[in-house]
């Protein structure tokens, strides 16, 4: 019996060890499957515009003497996979072969935004970090709290390696202001591209239903969505449930709905979450009703909203503009109807968008390595590179001169050109604060609970309480 007890104890200890090994702070979780397919939209972990955007001004201060980036090899972690990774690698090769300092960039994909974030979090205590990485503003804030990021204004303002005022004016304000982190009063990212949430709609189906165009407010959206389930699209292909609106559970989707009603996720001084406001309750009550009426439902597979839209079974979806080319492909391979994008419906006078996008952040290392990383980051933000990247991926450039270079592309892609104009509408700000990644999970929980029938107000209050706990815990 003693032997059996001992054996049992050993087995339990071994099991427990397995559990700890899976949760060790320096190990990436083995449980989470690596992304095997190319992302069809930008994973929306939003970005944000600070209340009072600070535009860095070039100064006449000389570059710190003795910093020479020549011959540096820097690592760059990103989330791109598939064709986007191929493009990124080709751009890196261009940089490596053309830069005057002989800097070598080693680009490494990490599989996806979540995997990239997890790997960096695991790498912080182990001091195993890249020279630079793609990071959403809230993720950059989390890294900055740990003291591993470099503020970028010093490079932007550098007379040799920085920008002139004219170059800075070339950037769109919405992009330039996004990386200014209110918890630090500093900039920890540089934006090579942007994305936003838009509404995709089936124009042919709308006409069959007797509507001239897409909805501009939420009442029309509900009316059209519910009309769609009564009268399926004549060109529908394949079998499946017909819906007015199909959604994936995501905090950015909620933020999009909220912004369009004039609400905000975070208060003005970024000290507290406020999405349980009247606009938040309205948003969730409205959405819940839409689900209860059978006019909207959750996608039951990854990118299911895209494929169902393409098959003509879903009238509307709302997601990132970076999925534009995938929507086009889904429609071409599916029901081949006329479709387009519009700003999401809104209760505000003008559309209020959710514009976001990950930026480039640089990790603290040697001054030479940091400068080399900055030079690559700057190169990636040059109009030529931005135009190349944007016209191949569906993202938006962040510079006017890059957009000008894309004139032919925009002529050939009117839907993209139309969506690009939405960049100049007012935009809500998600949360450029440490702890927002954690909060996003709580918002997603709140969504599944409310859309599963729970009370909107109490669920929103609970989510705000949990998010504020994270905000406090994660604060610098």
């Amino acid at each position, binding site marked *: 019996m003693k032997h059996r007890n001992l054996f049992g104890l050993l087995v339990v200890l071994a099991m427990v060890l397995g559990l700890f090994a899976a949760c060790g702070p320096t190990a990436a*979780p083995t449980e989470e499957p690596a992304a095997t397919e190319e992302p069809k939209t930008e994973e929306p972990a939003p970005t944000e515009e600070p209340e009072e955007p600070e535009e860095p001004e070039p100064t006449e201060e000389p570059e710190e003497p003795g910093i020479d980036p020549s011959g540096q090899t820097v690592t760059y972690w990103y989330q791109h996979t598939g064709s986007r990774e191929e493009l990124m690698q080709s751009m890196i090769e261009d940089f490596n072969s053309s830069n005057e300092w002989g800097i070598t960039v080693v680009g490494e994909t990490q599989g996806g935004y979540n995997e990239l974030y997890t790997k960096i979090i695991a790498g912080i205590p182990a001091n195993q970090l890249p020279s630079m990485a793609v990071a959403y503003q809230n993720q950059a804030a989390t890294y900055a709290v740990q003291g591993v990021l470099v503020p970028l204004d010093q490079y932007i303002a550098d007379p040799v390696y920085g920008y002139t005022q004219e170059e800075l004016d070339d950037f769109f304000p919405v992009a330039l202001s996004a990386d200014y982190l209110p918890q630090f009063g500093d900039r920890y990212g540089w934006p090579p591209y942007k994305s936003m949430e838009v509404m995709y709609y089936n124009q042919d189906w709308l006409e069959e239903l007797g509507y001239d165009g897409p909805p501009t407010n939420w009442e029309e959206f509900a009316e059209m969505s519910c009309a769609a389930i009564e009268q399926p699209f004549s060109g529908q292909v394949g079998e499946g449930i017909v819906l007015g609106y199909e959604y994936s559970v995501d905090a950015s989707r909620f933020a999009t709905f909220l912004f369009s009603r004039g609400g905000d996720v975070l208060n003005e001084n970024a000290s507290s979450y406020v999405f349980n406001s009247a606009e938040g309750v309205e948003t969730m009550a409205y959405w819940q009703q839409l689900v209860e009426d059978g006019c909207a439902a959750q996608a039951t597979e990854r990118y299911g909203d895209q494929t169902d839209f393409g098959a003509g079974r879903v009238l509307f979806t709302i997601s990132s503009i970076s999925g534009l080319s995938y929507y086009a492909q889904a429609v071409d391979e599916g029901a081949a109807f006329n479709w387009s994008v519009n700003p999401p419906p809104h209760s505000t006078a003008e559309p209020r968008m959710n514009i976001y996008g990950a930026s480039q952040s640089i990790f603290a290392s040697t001054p030479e390595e940091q400068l080399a990383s900055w030079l690559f980051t700057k190169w990636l933000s040059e109009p030529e590179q931005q135009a190349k990247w944007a016209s191949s991926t569906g993202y938006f450039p962040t510079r006017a001169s890059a957009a000008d270079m894309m004139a032919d592309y925009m002529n050939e892609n009117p839907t993209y050109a139309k969506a690009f104009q939405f960049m100049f509408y007012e935009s809500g700000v998600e949360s450029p604060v440490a702890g927002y990644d954690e909060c996003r999970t709580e918002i997603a929980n709140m969504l599944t609970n409310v859309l599963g029938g729970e009370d909107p107000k109490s669920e929103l209050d609970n989510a705000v309480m949990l998010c504020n706990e994270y905000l406090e815990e994660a604060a610098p």
Partner: protein
Amino acid sequence: MNLPEPQSKPQPTKGQRSRKMREAIQAYAFLLPGTLILFVFSLLPIGYALYISMHKWRVKRGDFIGMENYLKALGNPIDVLFVLLGLGLLAGSWMVWRKITAGTPTKILAWRIGLAFMLIFGGFALFLGFPKMLADGDKDLFESLLITFYYSLGTVPFQVGLSFLLANILFQDIKGKSAWRIIYFLPYVTVTVASAAVWQSIFDPTKGLVNIGLAGLGFNPDTLPRWLFEAEGVVTLIGNWIGVEVPEWAGGPSLALISVIIYNIWTYVGYNTVIYLSGLGNIPHSLYEAAEIDGANRWEILRKITIPLVSPTTYFLVMMGILGTFRAFNSIYVMTRVAGPVGAPQGTTMTASMLIWKNFWNGNRFGYASALAFVLTGVMLSLNWIQNRISEGRAFYG
């Protein structure tokens, strides 16, 4: 009568001592690599996790906070003490009770009965701290333990029962026995992430094979179950189906959790079957022959010979099953992530290991997650101890 004088123990010679020493050194040298591996890869991480659990640890180490993370999980220390004492006394009284047999002398019997009753009542009184602990501690933790309990209860008995049945069938002289063994064993050797992803698509409410099959059988497509997306308890769903109102507390595990349970049973039945086959092969054939000569029928042979003689295998499989379900993660994570954030739908698949993961990776609460892991370890060790006590005298080792 001359008794032989007791002989003193012969002293080992120098050569013998030296040989013994050499043997001891050799033995320790052989043990050293294994001990080092155990220390570096088992004890050190456990010790480090304990160290983390006593700190405010968010990505990097913060202040030392002692037992604060544990108290956050379990509630007021007095309540925790009450519960632990209560459980300990109950366990102690139960052990004393089990020692009492028909042959126990009367005086001792009375003393033991008195002790047992005292312990039971004392234990129950202390157990009153439990509701307070539930109220003051981390509700998510207790909820997750309940879900884990459902998961274990829904998985282990079916896994073991089904594999015992299959093993008995495969143990017969049937054609293609080896092929069947391989077929049943295949799910166990299939990569969990891959097979769980396939099962996730099988349970897809709109395009999955299960619902397509049900629709093909004539069920109304609009009322088909939503499987991994269904947060409602199965008892409630059955009640709704037959028109009986089920109170909320009796709703049972969600249909999403049941879907994961079905996958888990599918995965491990083959493995358990192979273990059972090995156990069945160890039963001497002569016992069956003797029983047949004595006129025993198949049911009696199964009940009186097979089941008792494979009881050590059953004990092993039940123990492994319980421990496995308490630390299960991969399959639950892969299958349910399509329905929403970790623990979806609506937290009904948030088992204890999922909650630990959520706190660790989603919440960056390394210290608290480590404390939760130790709480779960405590629960698992307690279950293992209880199982050991229950199996005493029931598992027959020959």
